[in-house]
């Protein structure tokens, strides 16, 4: 079961994540206010903030999923406190180095730092690119050790075939693999794969940097590697959230625990294949990419929705439909998060259709759909875990009127802020513009609309931050 040390470190993770989340939201609001013409940031400041916002968000919601999975995994296998602490230290150092490179060094190549932009004169200090790459390496080392350690812990108890729940594909089997272990295995394998891609990117960057012109990278290969890493980690962090839902949803609802069946096993094994090949949809507009890979991109993007909808979402429907459930803030947040994930997925599938991508690629449609399944999906999964974790020892946690008000505020803020992105995308407004040209008439009012609703969303998040952090501080300073 969960040790006292693990409870304390999980509390530190949660407080750290929520603090960084609030800062990142503020950066996002400042960007939208600048685009709306309300404030005037220097262009360099805008793009370094964009870089900080994107990478911090990806980083914190990735570690939010990892630390939740690590905490719950102790129910099945022993996990290492030392490795968890190492990951925390590496993450904090990584964030500090990243922020130093962006806030002080003005590194501004966005989270994609698409080769060869960091090598060209782009306004940053001369040391900023090196520091930025070092910060990524620090994240990578900490997270890689964490993933390998958790995977090794699983494999001490389950064989690889059992961890993938392959025995469930046969009619008769002696051992059962809990869905939590299956999903965590599939997700960790995906994360380890994309972290290896990240290592290759960093090595290739440094190789060119140190070769003084003797070695030059291939732009298409670097783009493929970048999106393989970025797309995969952004999706795997959602899957970490789903592992938590498979473990906790039934439990907090007062229902029997979910079990692995043949179709759950099949769906999650297929998910691994689809998620590792769907990233090609980021390169549709690179016509030199082999056509076969472009088709794989669309098919994998479509197919990825099948196990998600047919198994996970439908399982949630079965668990809830005409079933008496003990509703609390935890399972309501899980349920709302699933809805946000589905709706974001619809926007993603529309964009992943090549003929649509021609008019949507790199418009505001892109931040629209990924903010939907992050801000209204993955964030809610993690908030649900944070809330459940911080209230574990409390009895009779019901959905209070204040909690209902909080959810409504979150919904209003989230929907309004996302709609501004979707409408902007359909109006052909490009993403990543610090200021909009006058010819794009709808862009500024939409940016203002987005900023206003994002402030409402922030108010709801601040309330979560206050309540959850207060309880986590109590856990942190409680005597054993």
């Amino acid at each position: 079961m969960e040790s006292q040390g693990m409870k304390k470190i999980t509390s530190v993770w949660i407080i750290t994540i929520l603090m960084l989340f609030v800062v990142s939201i503020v950066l996002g609001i400042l960007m939208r206010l600048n685009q709306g013409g309300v404030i005037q940031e220097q262009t360099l400041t805008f793009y370094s903030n964009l870089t900080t916002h994107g990478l911090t968000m990806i980083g914190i919601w990735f570690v939010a999923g990892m630390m939740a999975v690590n905490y719950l995994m102790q129910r099945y296998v022993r996990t290492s406190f030392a490795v968890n602490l190492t990951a925390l230290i590496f993450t904090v150092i990584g964030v500090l180095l990243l922020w130093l490179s962006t806030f002080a060094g003005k590194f501004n190549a966005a989270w994609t730092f698409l080769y060869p932009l960091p090598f060209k004169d782009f306004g940053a200090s001369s040391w900023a690119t090196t520091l930025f790459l070092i910060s990524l390496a620090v994240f990578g080392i900490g997270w890689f050790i964490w993933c390998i350690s958790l995977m090794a812990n699983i494999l001490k108890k389950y064989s690889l075939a059992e961890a993938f729940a392959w025995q469930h594909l046969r009619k008769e089997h002696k051992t059962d693999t809990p869905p939590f272990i299956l999903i965590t295995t599939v997700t960790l394998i995906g994360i380890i794969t994309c972290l290896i891609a990240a290592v290759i990117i960093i090595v290739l960057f440094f190789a060119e940097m140190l070769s003084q012109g003797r070695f030059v990278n291939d732009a298409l290969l670097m783009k493929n590697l970048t999106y393989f890493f970025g797309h995969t980690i952004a999706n795997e962090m959602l899957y970490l959230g789903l592992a938590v839902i498979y473990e906790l949803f039934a439990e907090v609802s007062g229902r029997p625990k979910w079990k692995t069946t043949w179709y759950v096993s099949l769906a999650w094994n297929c998910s691994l294949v689809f998620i590792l090949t769907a990233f090609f949809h980021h390169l549709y507009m690179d016509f030199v990419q082999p056509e076969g890979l472009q088709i794989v991109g669309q098919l994998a993007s479509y197919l990825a929705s099948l196990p998600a909808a047919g198994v996970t979402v439908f399982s949630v429907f079965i668990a809830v439909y005409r079933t008496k459930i003990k509703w609390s803030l935890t399972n309501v947040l899980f349920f709302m998060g699933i809805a946000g994930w589905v709706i974001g997925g619809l926007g993603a599938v529309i964009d992943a259709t090549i003929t649509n991508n021609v008019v949507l690629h790199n418009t505001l449609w892109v931040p629209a759909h990924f903010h939907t399944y992050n801000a209204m999906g993955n964030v809610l999964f993690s908030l649900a875990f944070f809330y459940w974790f911080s209230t574990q020892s409390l009895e009779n946690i019901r959905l209070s009127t204040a909690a209902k008000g909080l959810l409504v505020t979150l919904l209003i803020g989230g929907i309004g802020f996302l709609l501004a992105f979707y409408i902007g995308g359909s109006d052909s407004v490009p993403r990543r513009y610090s200021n909009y040209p006058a010819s794009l008439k709808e862009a500024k009012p939409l940016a203002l609309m987005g900023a206003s609703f994002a402030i409402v969303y922030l108010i709801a998040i601040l309330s979560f931050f206050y309540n959850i952090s207060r309880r986590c501080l109590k856990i942190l300073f409680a005597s054993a």
Partner: protein
Amino acid sequence: MLQHELLILFLILAGIATIVFVYVFLSSWRLKEEGGGMKKPLKKRFWFSLILVVVLGIFATATLPRSPYFQYAHESPAKVIHVDAMQFMFYMSEHAIDPKLPVSENIELPANQMVEFRVTSLDVNHGFGIYDSAMHLITQVQAMPGYVNRLRYTFKKPGTYHVLCLEYCGMGHPVMETSFVVK
């Protein structure tokens, strides 16, 4: 515009999804005693998944052949335009552009005839996004150093078309634009 139709499609699908989620939630929330859950869930799951497979299959079959890589694949363009992108401008010419001394020309293209843009970059990745006179994005391709992307398109309406950069390329990204005329 396709993008407006896609927004409507998205809003309809998102609306249906919301209704389903609210309906399922209320079916539990309003229960006073055990309601018996979903009847024949495996059968319903099968049909739900099958419908999804069919719908996605139809979408894939209908859209993949119309992908830009296959359009005009066996036709010859009426005009070829060379495009070299560079922080933070586009060079466009009917002749091959010298990367050491790039120069741009005023471009006039024929309406209702297929033209080809040969797009590359002299430094970082850029996006070559073509907007019509009402500032609706009509087509695009990436400009990548070391590669030439060939974008083929037939302009139906005469007028001034604008080009915006659609890949973040540095601080001057939002001011990187040019235009050409279709007659």
